[in-house]
């Protein structure tokens, strides 16, 4: 547990669980993949190639919207959806930081068991 940069994890920690939960579904992941072209898409376009009903797709989009991964904008009578990459980037940063902490802890464990570092009893 290296102390460096640990404070930086706090905002990411708070937002990561809902983002992970929202992305924990194949349909929603495929919607995110479609939206990751940076364009705004109508529900009709997002339904293309999917076996799901328009209502089901809409429900999934609302879940993504709730986690702020996706934004909807009105265009005349229809809603267009676009991706906000920030929350996904933030959870990636969070996981990467936790992962780095483990790299450092495991390398301390390695010296501890291999070289008999101080503290060995």
């Amino acid at each position, binding site marked *: 547990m*290296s*102390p460096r940069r640990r404070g930086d994890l706090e905002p990411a920690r708070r937002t990561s*669980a809902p983002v992970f939960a929202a992305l*924990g*579904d194949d349909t929603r*992941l495929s919607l995110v993949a479609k939206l*990751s072209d940076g*364009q705004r898409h109508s529900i009709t376009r997002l339904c293309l190639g999917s076996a799901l009903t328009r209502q089901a797709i809409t429900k999934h989009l609302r879940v993504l919207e709730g986690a702020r991964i996706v934004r909807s904008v009105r265009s005349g009578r229809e809603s267009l959806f676009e991706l906000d990459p920030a929350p996904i980037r933030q959870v990636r940063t969070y996981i990467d930081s*936790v992962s780095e902490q483990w790299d450092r802890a495991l390398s301390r464990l390695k010296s501890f*068991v291999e070289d008999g570092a101080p503290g060995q009893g």
Partner: protein
Amino acid sequence: MSTDRIEKRIDLKAPVPRVWRALTDHREFGAWFGVNLEGPFVPGKVARGRVTHPGYEHITWEAVIQRMEPERLFSFTWHPFAVDTKADYTKEAPTLIEFRLESIGGGTRLTLTESGFDGIPSGRRPEAFRMNEQGWTQQMKNIESHVAAAKRRP
């Protein structure tokens, strides 16, 4: 490969019983991890102690010990690197840390996993999520590179 998890594998030039002791003896764990633990690890019980890294001694480290299967598996749940003394972590779902030990030619292969970042206990996870073979981190990398590529396009 699984889902929303961190997985690390490290080969140690020390026999399994030595590594097991470094992981599960609270004084030895504390020495390399950087925490001064109050007492031995007991499955089902909270382990607690002060962080020993200079400048971070005001932080209390806490975990709930889950399983101790001698020389095979050691696990605990915690709030990953929880350091904000003002934050109330009790409302958040903890993640699960698992250390698995395997003997390899006199040494030890240690596999560490940390899972549960989505806040959903693994037993209640939807099947589709568990079946997602590429894994979380990879999925997110893919999405990110998609986004980056879209931005580069004229």
